[in-house]
């Protein structure tokens, strides 16, 4: 009995053992030397061996962690909390052990380097995968934002208290000037927010100050900026034009009739908010899709873009993304929407690259299902199977008739939303890519049929065009495409939720400042 237990435990242990897979390299430039660290993927996250962290920090490996100068990091296998002196910081994923050696997520490396060289001196460029030690210490380390019902909050994390000033340069542009502010290299790119209120924040390092230019896309509204400490940070709240004072603006009428009867208008049905997005990377496996003249395959490019898009959505919107495939496998067309339906996705985006023979065609276009197709017999039957309504008590003929009507109504709505999503994605692609905008079109796409949700297909470039094929081989263009699609998704989500009056609002009974932590 006991032996059986041991065997079972061992078996579970084997199943739970982390899987390692080669991920890449990180260059660390320190004290005039370059050290290349090899990283591995463990459960989808990038890890480095603690031994290598010790080398670049000139630290000492302990039985249960690492000592760098007088700072001790205590690690516990499978626990994300790292004890540093008398405080704890949380890693994005727990340390794991392989052959008795600790492996840690890469942010641990940055922390350990900071222990050696001081916080604010360690620079990490994700894009080039280089860690280096700066000549100048930065004091503005990060920016994050959150959309509430009637305002958007932007928070700038600082390493010390700094004085600042918020100027309204125009209705559409504000600037936050931080005296003596030095931006971390992580804050060098424009941050796209696109939540229907703020379009973007553009950081700039100027003489003696850091400037964050805030571009609004909904004009007017009150603004306020204040400082919080421990840790030091600067908070900017930007209200919608109509909203006069903090948190008491009238909310849009909820749609659910039970809400109208009830007295509390804030009890919004949360399940109507966008929680899950389905991304479909076209083709795969034996279905190669279109081919470039230099041999680039549609199935590979679109998977790459889809995975980039997934990362952006997860990181920036923090919502669930369901993929129809994450590797080079064949997935039947009808299975793709079935995956999205099962996951109860709120909308479905299929990513493809285009082709046309003997043509110099280039650029992007977006599609949604044509009305004709939605009326087709196939769609009607697909829909009846998916219809989540039980019409018990009615005669079968009545059920059929009612289902057809309900389905028609739901679809009409999906179609409207699909065309809107197609339009929004197209506009964002147009803003970021400098090629031909071929418009929104509609056609009977097999992969969009049977989707129990708004569904669109984006043809983001022509792989049959030599120049576009070349661009699709590089990282930068795929990043731009993913960025554009992400922005479209964020816009659609914000618009959809605003329309339903569903945007998240601060917790009741707590001040905005308290809610910020």
């Amino acid at each position, binding site marked *: 009995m006991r032996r059986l237990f041991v065997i079972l435990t061992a078996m579970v242990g084997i199943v739970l053992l982390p899987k390692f897979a080669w991920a890449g390299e990180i260059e660390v430039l320190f004290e005039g030397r370059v050290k290349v660290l090899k990283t591995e993927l463990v459960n989808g996250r990038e890890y480095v061996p603690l031994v290598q962290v010790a080398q670049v920090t000139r630290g000492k490996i302990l039985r249960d962690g690492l000592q760098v100068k007088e700072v001790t990091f205590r690690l516990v296998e499978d626990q994300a909390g790292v004890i540093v002196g008398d405080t704890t910081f949380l890693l994005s994923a727990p340390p794991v052990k392989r052959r008795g050696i600790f492996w840690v997520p890469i942010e641990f490396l940055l922390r350990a380097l900071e222990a050696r060289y001081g916080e604010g001196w360690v620079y990490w460029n994700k894009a080039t995968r280089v860690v280096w030690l700066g000549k100048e210490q930065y004091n503005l380390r990060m920016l994050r934002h959150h959309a509430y019902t009637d305002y958007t909050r932007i928070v700038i994390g600082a390493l010390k208290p700094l004085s600042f000033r918020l100027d309204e340069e125009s209705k559409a542009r504000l600037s936050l000037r931080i005296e003596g502010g030095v931006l971390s290299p992580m804050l060098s790119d424009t941050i796209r927010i696109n939540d229907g209120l703020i379009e973007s924040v553009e950081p700039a390092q100027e003489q003696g100050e850091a400037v964050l230019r805030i571009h609004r896309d909904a004009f007017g509204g009150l603004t306020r900026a204040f400082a919080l400490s421990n840790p030091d940070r600067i908070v900017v709240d930007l209200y919608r034009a109509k909203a006069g004072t903090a948190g008491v603006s009238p909310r849009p009428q909820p749609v659910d009739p039970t809400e109208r009867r009830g007295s509390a208008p804030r009890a919004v049905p949360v399940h109507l908010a966008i929680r899950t997005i389905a991304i479909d990377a076209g083709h795969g496996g034996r279905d190669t899709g279109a081919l470039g003249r230099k041999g680039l395959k549609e199935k590979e490019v679109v998977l790459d873009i889809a995975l980039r898009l997934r990362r952006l959505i997860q990181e920036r919107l923090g919502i669930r993304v369901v993929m129809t495939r994450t590797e080079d496998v064949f997935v039947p067309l009808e299975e793709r929407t079935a995956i999205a339906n099962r996951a109860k996705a709120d909308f479905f985006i299929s990513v493809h690259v285009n082709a*046309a023979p003997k043509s110099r065609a280039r650029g992007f276009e977006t599609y949604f299902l044509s009305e004709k197709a939605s009326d087709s017999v196939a769609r009607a039957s697909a829909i009846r199977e998916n219809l989540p309504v039980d019409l018990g008590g009615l005669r079968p003929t009545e059920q059929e008739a009612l289902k057809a009507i309900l389905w028609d109504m739901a679809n009409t709505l999906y179609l*409207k939303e699909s065309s809107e999503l197609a339009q929004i994605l197209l506009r964002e692609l147009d803003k970021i890519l400098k090629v031909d905008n071929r418009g929104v079109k509609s056609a009977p796409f097999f992969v969009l049929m049977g989707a129990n949700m708004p569904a669109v297909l984006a043809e983001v470039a022509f792989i049959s065009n030599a120049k576009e094929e070349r661009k699709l081989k590089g990282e930068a263009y795929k990043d731009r495409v993913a960025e554009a699609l992400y922005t479209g998704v964020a816009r659609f989500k914000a618009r959809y939720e605003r329309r339903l009056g569903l945007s998240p609002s601060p917790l009741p009974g707590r001040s905005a400042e308290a809610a910020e932590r």
Partner: protein
Amino acid sequence: MVSPGLRRFLGLLLLVLGTGVVGFLLGRAWAPHVPAPVPHIPPVEDGNAVDTTTRPVRLFFAGPSADKLQEEERTIPRTASFVQEAKRAVEELIKGPQNGLNPTIPPGVKLRQLYVDGRGIAYVDFTRNLQTTHPGGSGGELLTIYSIVDTLTANFDEIQRVKILVEGSEILTLAGHIDARHPFKPRYSLERIR
């Protein structure tokens, strides 16, 4: 207990109702609509000059930027049966354009059979390489499909819809995008709808 899926669905329905939407059911005024110009066959005029041994056909090929179909007129022999003429028109389509437009059917593809049923549906049966050598892409696929469909419906009043077959069998799609399980109606414009 109501499932979240049902609640969500009902929520959507209520939204439909709540936003004043009888119009959705009746008019669908928002719906994308591509106006299809009525095709016309040039009238055969009376008189001795008229050539009764040939007839003109309008073939639909891809425009230079592959976003729409453009016509090229060609002459084919007149026969006793419009089905023979329809076959010939598709064969001309396969040969490709002569005046600078782009082809829509991969080279080497052959027409196996063409027949028309009593409901005005033409069944056009191609060799396997229509699928296997197709360059792919939604754009390319739409051009192939509608060049065949439009060519047949624009020239032959007897044909209203076209179903594409490969090696005698129904296909799901030609190149992975467009649902080909049902007969296609003509679509004389592939241009953007907005």
